[in-house]
């Protein structure tokens, strides 16, 4: 009964979305307030219905209702509760449901909290948002219904892929989709603005918080995914330039560019048509990511739900959404007025550089990810594009970006003094040199790229700090004065400092992992000791025991340094009998500056009692995720900026009355 209720709610949501997609749009065009006002209850109703549907599916998972096919295929009665719930989105159908849930949630949020939006803009935004909703709800109902029953119901399920039964991966999709789908807001705002034919600083101020929220979520989602790869895949790799990873990384890059260009629109009323284009493209990249992962056009090992019918549907959806938006753009954008003037050396100029580099980086990842497809489509042969390509092309683009990242915020709007900005950064430069020398000393040299990485990390981090201390006049004014300034600083400014500093921290982690990782692979018998990076690891024993839905083979290692006991480590190998797969659980001991990473491998044949063991020392690696979390916090701090809450009085007043569409 409950699954049918869920299915029914989904169909109702589709009807509400249809209403929301049409009436408010017509209302806005005709200046009919009553029609425009339909948007709010429709958006809230649509969200409620999808939530009911989502909860119904969750319920089926929680009680292990094996009469539902989706539950049979992705769950098992013995599975821990956390993974029963995570199983809801650990498969194609359920994850699409989560997708539309988040989509409707953003729509509902605009309906509830968007009081300061002009009514026509609000109606149009919600309308566009609902159009996306209609498309995806149709997609789910037509091709990916999670509520299909099986009769007779099997006694138990076939279990969720063991790799997904992991806390990191349980929460990865919700964050990732929050980001992916959150960019739909930027898209809806952009399309609504194109329909209105007007983009101004107020528009940028409204669109920025949604983009910031999506960006923060996506940052967290990507970080969780790579963290999972780090500890789960058994050797500490955390980024593979895999198409599925790239599918989430491209919207992140474009979204980062969008965040920055929207600042220019907001502050200086310039870069408007570019920002609109970026908003469209960012969400397009999210859709393309969804298409790539679910259609099987790229051979990614992790593509789930590879089904040509679904591929065709998503492609159609992508084409309608993006081609429609771009067509509107081609018609309306040329008449957009150019905004404020500025010199090349200025804050605006720096943000243009940021956008140039980030867009090129996005294009590079895009080209690399899709090139095999392009070549195959014209029968020009098969080619693989892997990490060596991306490292060779992407990193050189990041170097100037990070170098400029510290300088940009010190430049004044309109026209700036580059030499002055650089001279204010001399302290950061000194600290950077110290860090590089420190790295040289600690690692007795090392690859040049590593030193460059350290330099960039330090430059980004200290550059961000200097910018802050500069603004609050730390040590140049009395401390009380600095404190007053620090408190008075807008949250968005704090957010920027935090995010930029986090980027520096993350770069340090990436550099450390790439340049100074050490590895020991050997056969060890209980009692044997191995050395790595100045630590001694004694292999004590291996135990086997059944736990929940798997059989664990747990090793015990004693970690010490110079004979001094530090910790006991328990790497594990897990065997999942239902899905006939095994996973490795590395034991990781972190001191927040470096990780010691131990993996228990296979027992050697021949009954010698020896096990293949793999030991790794990963310097600075924890900083990758610490940096990402700091960036996300920066995004949230910026999001809490007061101006996003109070809106812009000037335009709000002017638009209290719905105006007919401006003539061009």
């Amino acid at each position, binding site marked *: 009964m409950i699954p049918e209720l869920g299915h029914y709610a989904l169909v109702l949501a589709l009807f509400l979305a249809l209403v929301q997609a049409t009436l408010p749009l017509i209302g806005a065009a005709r200046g009919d307030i009553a029609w425009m006002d339909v948007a709010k209850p429709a958006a809230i109703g649509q969200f409620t219905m999808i939530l009911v549907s989502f909860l119904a599916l969750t319920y089926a998972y929680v009680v292990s209702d094996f009469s539902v096919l989706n539950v049979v295929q992705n769950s098992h009665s013995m599975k821990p509760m956390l993974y029963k719930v995570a199983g809801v989105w650990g498969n194609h159908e359920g994850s699409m449901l989560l997708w539309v849930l988040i989509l409707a949630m953003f729509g509902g949020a605009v309906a509830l909290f968007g009081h300061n939006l002009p009514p026509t803009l609000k109606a149009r935004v919600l309308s566009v948002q609902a159009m996306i909703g209609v498309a995806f709800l149709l997609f789910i109902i037509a091709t990916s219904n999670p509520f299909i029953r099986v009769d007779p119901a099997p006694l138990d399920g076939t279990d969720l892929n063991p790799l997904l039964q992991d806390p990191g991966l349980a929460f990865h999709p919700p964050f990732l989709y929050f980001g992916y789908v959150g960019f739909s807001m930027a898209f809806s705002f952009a399309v609504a603005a194109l329909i209105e034919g007007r983009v101004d600083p107020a528009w940028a101020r409204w669109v920025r918080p949604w983009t910031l929220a999506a960006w923060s979520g996506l940052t967290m989602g990507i970080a969780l995914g790579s963290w999972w790869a780090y500890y789960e895949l058994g050797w500490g790799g955390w980024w593979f330039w895999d198409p599925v990873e790239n599918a989430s990384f491209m919207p992140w890059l474009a979204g980062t560019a969008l965040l920055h260009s929207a600042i220019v629109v907001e502050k200086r009323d310039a870069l408007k*048509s570019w920002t609109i*284009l970026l908003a*469209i*493209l960012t969400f*397009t990249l999210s859709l393309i990511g969804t*298409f790539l992962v679910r*259609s*099987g*056009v*790229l*051979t990614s090992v992790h593509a789930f739900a590879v089904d*040509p019918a679904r*591929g*065709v549907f998503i*492609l159609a959806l*992508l*084409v309608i959404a*993006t*081609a429609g938006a*771009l*067509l509107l*753009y*081609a018609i309306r*954008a*040329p008449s957009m007025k150019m905004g404020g003037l500025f010199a090349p050396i200025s804050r605006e100029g720096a943000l243009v550089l940021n956008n140039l580099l980030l867009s090129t980086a996005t294009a590079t990842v895009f080209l690399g990810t*899709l090139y*095999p*497809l*392009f070549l*195959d*489509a014209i029968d020009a*042969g*098969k080619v693989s594009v892997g990490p060596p390509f991306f490292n060779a092309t992407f990193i050189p683009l990041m170097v100037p970006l990070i170098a400029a990242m510290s300088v940009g915020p010190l430049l004044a709007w309109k026209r700036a003094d580059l030499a002055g900005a650089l001279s204010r950064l001399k302290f950061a430069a000194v600290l950077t040199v110290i860090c590089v020398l420190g790295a040289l000393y600690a690692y007795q040299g090392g690859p040049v790229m590593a030193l460059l990485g350290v330099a960039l990390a330090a430059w980004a981090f200290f550059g961000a700090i200097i910018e802050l201390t500069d603004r609050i006049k730390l040590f140049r004014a009395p401390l009380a004065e600095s404190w007053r300034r620090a408190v008075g600083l807008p949250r968005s400014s704090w957010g920027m400092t935090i995010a930029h500093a986090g980027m520096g921290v993350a770069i340090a982690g990436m550099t450390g992992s790439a340049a100074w990782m050490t590895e020991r692979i050997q056969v060890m018998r209980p009692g044997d000791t191995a050395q790595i990076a100045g630590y001694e690891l004694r292999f004590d024993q291996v135990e086997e025991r059944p736990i929940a839905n798997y059989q664990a083979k747990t090793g015990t290692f004693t970690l010490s340094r110079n004979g001094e006991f530090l910790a006991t480590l328990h790497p594990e190998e897990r065997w999942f009998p239902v899905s006939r797969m095994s996973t490795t659980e590395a034991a990781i001991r972190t001191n927040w500056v470096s990780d010691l990473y131990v993996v228990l491998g296979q027992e050697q044949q021949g009954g010698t009692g020896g096990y293949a063991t793999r030991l790794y020392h990963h310097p600075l690696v924890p900083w990758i995720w610490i940096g990402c979390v700091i960036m996300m916090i920066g995004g949230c701090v910026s999001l809490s900026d007061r101006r996003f809450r109070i809106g812009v009085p000037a335009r709000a007043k002017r638009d209290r009355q719905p105006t007919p569409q401006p003539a061009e």
Partner: protein
Amino acid sequence: MRRLIYILPLGLFVVLAGYFAVGLTRDPSVVPSALIDKPVPEFTLPPLLKDGQGLASAELKGKVQLVNVFASWCVPCRVEHPVLMRLAKEQGVTVKAINYKDKPEDAIRWLNQGGNPYAAIGADQDGRVSIDWGVYGVPETYVIDAEGRIRYKVVGPVMPDEVERHILPLIKSLQGDLQG
């Protein structure tokens, strides 16, 4: 002119969508052979069956034939086995085999159960020779011409449709070349 710039994104996207549409019709997991139209690699493999023939590059010259890479542990191989039987017994095609990373007793039992379509079977126990052939999965099937060159490769099980549409016509035309 300025207007063109604004239409550009749409144009690029349309091209992209076209690629995606074509991409949907392709199977990205099939890797083309690098050895097409090249002579078979130099190799010698011991026979799988005690009284049977082994396989070596020299024996792949002189007539058009198939080389099938199989293993008893490979599930898709079971699917194609009857097809190969029919090819060998009814259509008179010479099929030779490389037995990939298999236990000889398992392979022999397997052939006893399903029948033996192969004129010769080389046992590639460590898979080294198969690497020279560019094998990346089992089953794989190669069409070899009379000069001992690889002309065609099927990845995955040989299905009747594949036989009718590609393999038999190709064998015919290669034999025609030979006579002509």
